[in-house]
Each structure stands twice: as structure tokens, then as C-alpha cells.
């Protein structure tokens, strides 16, 4: 493996930015955002430099590593602070720093009126550093550091406006649910160490063949729990919608493009584990399928533009997870969809931010309408992202999503058919709710509040949107041209069971997919474009819509199953601690006290009763002697 000594700069630059801004305090208010953007951009630069270096090297020499220092060495548990940059992580590095830098630029303008802008940029840099650590760590434990680091950054950014209690709660909820996932990662690391004696990616990969399938399944499932927590997959998906409390650039960067895809990264990174644990893979696929439908259904009912996009994100990550669960064929497609999704979803989120910026931070789509004329650039960039997510050729989503649908069908048998149909229906629903978003926002009649003065955003904001739109248009083609990404990632994945022959011809799958998408678009068109849309959400809707509006009862479920019993348990324990545990101790004291006051009655002050007691005592003594003698 190639030894590099420049990898650390990828992380060190944004980390330094965050440190300077946080420690520097108000002094850095003036230029803090510029520094942060520069740090992010230079990290991107380092990433590009690393990519060039990598391209220069022969295939088997491409992965580069750097050992920084000895981190935790105890007995056989040896973890160094080491970085690993291979074909997989470089994709992420470029996505994170690239999209990250764009969003830094966007935020300069978007956050210009916020007096805490410096802090915002510090958090952004902290996030970039943590996320890079996540994808660059050479062991599960190093990944874990980044894993929780992004959780922290996400917590800070969701709660950036934490003076609003609801936002503070949302950030806490995100962190705690992420922690549930983190627990899964802890378990996975523990099992890996107990069974294989190592926690580094390389070490685990070497040990897989010597390890029982049961252990690998356990590791795989625990990794899946971790991935579900971070990527808002079923059943740990509830936090993502609330996470939209954060400023919109945050939603674009963390909750659409990068952090939430970390789960997919984890599964892909652990491909060697999953390849050897079919049961775990199956569960991955099931979770992916459930989530993609779950997210899609929620998306149909949301009037909040950001929440609709968040539901869409959840659903799209469901696609990726599903693909990642389909084995060696699926990993590359999962990553491809992840990258294209990073472009178009970030673009759309920024578009949503641009709309909100022009509409006094209104998020209810029912209060939009006919914004096309007022925000042409936003409309175009958002529209390109829309076409991409629908999977219309030749936009990016077409390449990535169709491949996933194909692969789903290729899984074969009943599984293949179920998965294929699920993905197709998901695509159709996606088309429906995205069309709904487009129509409600940009076309139709004005339904604005009176004080709204929609206007196009400044160039600092639309430039990143434009760049991302270009990505949404072209990335799919570029990445799949000549199977570029597949070939690039090829050395990382196990291809022992080579490509199966397609069960259904790709062109047929594409046809089916496009048909489904067309149906979705058409339904949305007839429902929203041909009818008047009211500016308040209608109440006389079907039970399904009501349920979907409440995120399919996910919060109710969590509340009923975890929160309330947990609160009851806490209250009971506190009472029990006072009454039982402390009470037992105080009870002993009480017994001593009360026996004391009972015995005090004997000390009545009368010499004669003392004498009587002495007499009784003497009898007892003599009786004792008598017993002993006889």
C-alpha cells in the first residue's frame, strides 16, 4: 500500500478552521466565513491533488495510507490514528469537500444577516473535518470518531437556532437517535475485536475467511443498525424530518448530500463482511426497501418543502441501501446513486433555501406558487435536479436509479421481483411527490402571504446552485460512461461471483421505470396543476394522507414504545431510589432510633427498677451457668 504523508491535511485544514473560529471568538467575526470557505476549498484542492496522485499510480498501488500516531494500544487491541484513502474514500472526499465548499459559498450570503454566522461556519468546518475523518479512517474505531463527530456537528447545526425550543428538541432527538445507531457500531466493533482480534478494515477483511458466518452476520446486522441511525433508515428514521430545523445549507450538506449517506458508506466499506453474511445482506435489502417506500409515502403528504425533500432523501438513501445489500454488483451502483444524489439533492435543497430566502423563510409550499417568473435561476436549477431525481434520461438519476432497479430485478426469483416492483413503485411515487413540489412551488397561482416579495437570490447563492445543477445533469453520464465508476471501484469489491447475465434486458427495465415515472408525474399533474390548490392544507383527507402527514406515526410509535415507558421508568427509579434503596438505609437508622426510644423506657430513673433489671440479669447469668454446667 502506498504510504502518503499528505492525507492528514484533508482533515487538518477544516479542523484548524473550526478551531480558529471557535477559539478566536468575536475577533474573527469579520473574516471567519471567508477563512472557513478557504479551508474547505483548500481541502477540496488537496483532495483533487490526492486524486491526481492516485491516478498516477498503478491500480494495486492506488490506496494510500498514513499513520499519524499511536492512538490506543492495549494488549491485542491496537488502533492507530491512521488514514486510508482508496478509490471509495476519494469519491466521498471529493463529494464532501466539493459540495461542502459550494455550500460554504452559498452560506456566506444565506447567513449574512445572522449575527452568529461565524459560529455557523465553524460548525460547518467541524462537520467537514469529521466527515472526512469518517471516510478516511483506516479502522472501524477511527471511523467511529468521525461518525460521532458528524453527529455532534449535525447536533450543533440542527440546533443552530436553538433559542427556539422546538429546534433544540429536534437537535437532541437527532443526536439521541444517532446514538442508538452508534451503539450498533460499538457492538460491531466489539464483536469484531472479540472474534477477529482486530478492528481495522484491512485486518477484518483478512480475517473474514476465518470467521464463522454467525459472527459475521452479527457484525453485519450491528453495522446495519449503525447505518440506519446515521442514514435515517427504518426503524431509526424519525429524526431526519425534524432535522430540517437547521439552516437550509445544513440540510443540503449534511442531511442530503453527505452525512446521511455515511450509512451507505459504512455498508459499502464493510462489503467483505456483508458478502460473507447473506442473512445480514438480506436484512439490509429489506431495510432499504422499507425505507424507500416509507420515505416516499411521507413525501407525498408533506407541505413543508424541506420536509418533503427530507422524506425524499430518506427514500433515495433507501435505494442506496437496497443496492448495497444486493452484493458486489450493487455497491458501485449504490455509490453512483449516492454521488448523483449528492448533486441533485443538494442542488434542490439549496433551491429550496433560495425560495425560502425570497419568501421570508416561509416553508409551506401551499403559500408558494408561480415563483417561476420571479426566481428563474432557482427554477431552472431546481428543475434540473427534479429531472435528475425522476430519472429522465440523460440526467444523472437515470443512470444511477435505473441501474439499481435493474440490479433489483437481477437478484432473481421472488426476491428479485418483489424488490424490482418495490423500486419501480418507489420511482413512481418519487415522480409524484417531486412533481407536486415543482407544481406547488413554481407554477400555478400566487398563494403568497401579503408581505412576501419574492426575488432572485444573489449570485453567491445561485452560483453553487448552478454548479450543482450542472452536476445533476452530467454526473450520471460521466460516472457511468464506460462503467467508469464501476471500474474505478472494481478492485475494492469482491467479484468472485461475476456479473450475472441480466434477467431482464436493461432497455425493458428503463422502459418500465419511465412508464412508472410518467404515471406518477401525470397523477401529480392532474391533482395539483389542473385543480386549484388551497393555501391551507385540506382537512377532509383520507386516513392515509393523515397518517402520512404524521410521518406514518413514527413519532407516535417512538413516544409510545420508548419515550413514555422510559419516562415512567425514570420516575419510578427516582422514587424507588429514595424510597427503597435510600429508604432501606434510613430504615436501619429508624429501627435503631425506635428501638432506642423503646429501650429508653427502661431507664425510668427509678433505682429500684434498675435493681430489678440487675436481678433479672443475674438470673439469666446463673441460668446460663446452669445450662453450661449441666
Amino acid at each position, binding site marked *: 500500500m502506498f504510504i502518503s504523508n499528505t492525507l492528514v491535511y484533508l482533515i487538518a485544514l477544516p479542523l484548524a478552521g473550526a478551531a480558529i473560529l471557535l477559539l478566536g471568538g468575536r475577533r474573527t467575526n469579520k473574516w471567519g466565513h471567508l477563512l472557513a470557505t478557504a479551508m474547505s476549498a483548500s481541502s477540496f484542492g488537496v483532495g483533487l491533488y490526492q486524486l491526481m496522485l492516485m491516478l498516477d499510480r498503478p491500480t494495486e498501488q492506488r490506496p494510500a495510507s498514513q499513520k499519524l500516531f499511536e492512538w490506543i494500544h492495549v494488549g491485542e487491541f491496537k488502533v492507530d490514528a491512521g488514514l486510508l484513502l482508496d478509490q471509495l474514500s476519494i469519491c466521498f472526499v471529493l463529494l464532501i469537500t466539493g459540495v461542502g465548499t459550494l455550500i460554504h459559498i452559498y452560506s456566506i450570503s444565506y447567513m449574512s444577516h445572522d449575527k452568529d454566522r461565524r459560529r455557523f461556519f465553524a460548525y460547518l468546518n467541524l462537520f467537514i473535518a469529521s466527515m472526512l475523518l469518517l471516510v478516511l479512517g483506516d479502522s472501524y474505531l477511527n471511523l467511529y470518531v468521525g461518525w460521532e463527530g458528524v453527529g455532534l456537528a449535525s447536533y450543533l447545526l440542527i440546533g443552530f437556532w436553538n433559542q427556539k425550543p422546538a429546534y433544540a428538541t429536534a437537535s437532541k432527538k437527532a443526536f439521541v437517535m444517532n446514538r442508538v445507531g452508534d451503539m450498533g457500531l460499538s457492538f460491531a466493533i466489539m464483536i469484531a475485536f472479540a472474534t477477529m482480534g482486530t478492528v481495522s478494515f484491512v485486518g477484518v477483511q483478512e480475517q473474514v475467511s476465518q470467521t464463522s458466518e454467525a459472527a459475521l452476520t452479527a457484525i453485519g446486522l450491528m453495522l446495519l443498525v449503525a447505518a440506519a441511525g446515521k442514514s435515517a433508515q427504518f426503524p431509526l428514521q424519525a429524526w431526519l424530518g425534524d432535522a430540517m430545523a437547521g439552516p437550509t445549507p445544513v440540510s443540503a450538506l449534511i442531511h442530503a448530500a453527505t452525512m446521511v449517506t455515511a450509512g451507505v458508506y459504512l455498508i459499502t466499506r464493510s462489503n467483505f463482511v456483508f458478502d460473507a453474511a447473506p442473512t445480514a445482506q438480506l436484512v439490509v435489502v429489506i431495510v432499504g426497501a422499507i425505507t424507500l417506500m416509507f420515505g416516499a409515502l411521507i413525501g407525498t403528504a408533506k407541505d413543508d418543502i424541506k420536509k418533503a425533500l427530507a422524506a425524499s432523501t430518506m427514500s433515495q438513501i433507501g435505494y442506496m441501501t437496497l443496492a448495497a445489500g444486493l452484493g458486489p454488483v450493487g455497491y458501485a451502483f449504490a455509490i453512483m446513486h449516492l454521488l448523483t444524489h449528492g448533486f441533485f439533492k443538494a442542488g434542490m435543497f439549496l433551491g429550496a433555501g433560495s425560495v425560502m430566502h425570497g419568501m421570508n423563510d416561509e416553508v409551506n409550499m401551499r403559500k408558494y406558487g408561480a415563483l417561476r417568473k420571479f426566481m428563474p435561476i432557482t427554477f431552472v436549477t431546481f428543475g434540473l435536479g427534479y429531472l435528475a431525481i425522476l430519472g429522465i434520461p440523460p440526467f444523472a438519476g437515470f443512470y444511477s436509479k435505473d441501474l439499481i432497479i435493474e440490479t433489483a430485478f437481477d437478484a432473481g426469483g421472488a426476491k428479485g421481483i418483489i424488490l424490482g416492483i418495490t423500486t419501480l413503485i418507489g420511482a413512481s411515487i418519487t415522480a409524484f411527490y417531486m412533481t407536486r413540489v415543482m407544481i406547488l412551488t413554481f407554477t400555478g397561482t400566487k398563494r403568497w402571504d401579503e408581505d412576501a416579495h419574492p426575488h432572485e437570490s444573489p449570485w453567491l447563492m445561485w452560483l453553487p446552485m448552478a454548479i450543482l445543477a450542472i452536476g445533476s445533469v452530467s454526473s450520471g453520464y460521466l460516472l457511468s460512461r464506460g462503467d467508469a465508476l464501476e471500474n474505478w471501484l472494481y478492485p475494492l469489491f469482491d467479484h468472485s461471483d461475476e456479473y450475472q447475465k441480466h434477467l431482464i434486458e436493461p432497455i425493458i427495465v428503463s422502459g418500465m421505470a419511465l412508464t412508472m415515472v410518467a404515471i406518477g408525474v401525470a397523477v401529480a399533474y392532474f391533482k395539483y396543476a389542473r385543480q386549484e390548490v388551497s393555501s391551507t392544507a385540506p382537512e377532509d383527507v383520507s386516513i392515509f394522507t393523515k397518517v402520512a402527514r404524521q410521518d406514518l406515526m413514527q413519532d407516535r410509535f417512538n413516544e409510545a414504545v420508548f419515550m413514555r415507558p422510559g419516562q415512567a421508568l425514570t420516575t419510578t427509579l427516582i422514587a424507588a431510589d429514595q424510597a427503597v434503596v435510600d429508604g432501606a438505609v434510613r430504615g436501619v437508622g429508624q429501627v435503631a432510633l425506635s428501638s432506642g426510644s423503646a429501650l429508653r423506657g427502661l*431507664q425510668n430513673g427509678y433505682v429500684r427498677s434498675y435493681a430489678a433489671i440487675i*436481678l433479672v440479669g443475674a438470673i439469666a447469668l446463673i441460668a446460663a451457668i446452669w445450662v453450661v454446667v449441666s
Partner: protein
Amino acid sequence: MDASNYLYISALLFTIGAVGVVVRRNAIVVFMCIELMLNAANLSLVTFSRINGDLDGQVMAFFTMVVAACEVVVGLAIIVAIYRSRRSASVDDASLLKR
């Protein structure tokens, strides 16, 4: 004549003395009961001396008498002192130790 008969009577006298200490309230009578108990013990000692055939028991009884005399002197002085302050020779009236 079995010498142990003296021991029995000594035990009886001692018991009577003990009961007297408990049931009588007049401090002087209580004192006399204590003297009775001491004397009962003395009788035992003398009897033991006879049973064992040496004089140590008698010497012991002699010492007891001396100590008893001291006790009587001091005890009666205490009674007088108490009587002076409390105008009563009842042991129940001297119950300041309680509570």
C-alpha cells in the same frame, strides 16, 4: 449436720435481701436489705471455709464486713444528704437520672 444446709439458708437470705432492695422504697430499709445480702454472702464464705477446712473464707468474710461497714457509713451519709435537700428518704424521689 450437713454444712450445705447453711448454704441453702444463705441463698434464701440473699434472695430475700434482693427482693427487699427491689420492693422497699425507704432508702434505709433498702440499705438494710443490702446488708442482709452481704451477710448472706458472709455466711456462705464461712461455710465454705468449714467445708474446705481452711481459714481463707473467714478472712474473706472479714474483709466483706469491713467493706460493708465502709459502705454503710458512706451510704447513710448519702441518705442524710439527700434527705436534707429533698425532705424524703424514698429512693423513688431520687430519680433525677431519668430522661
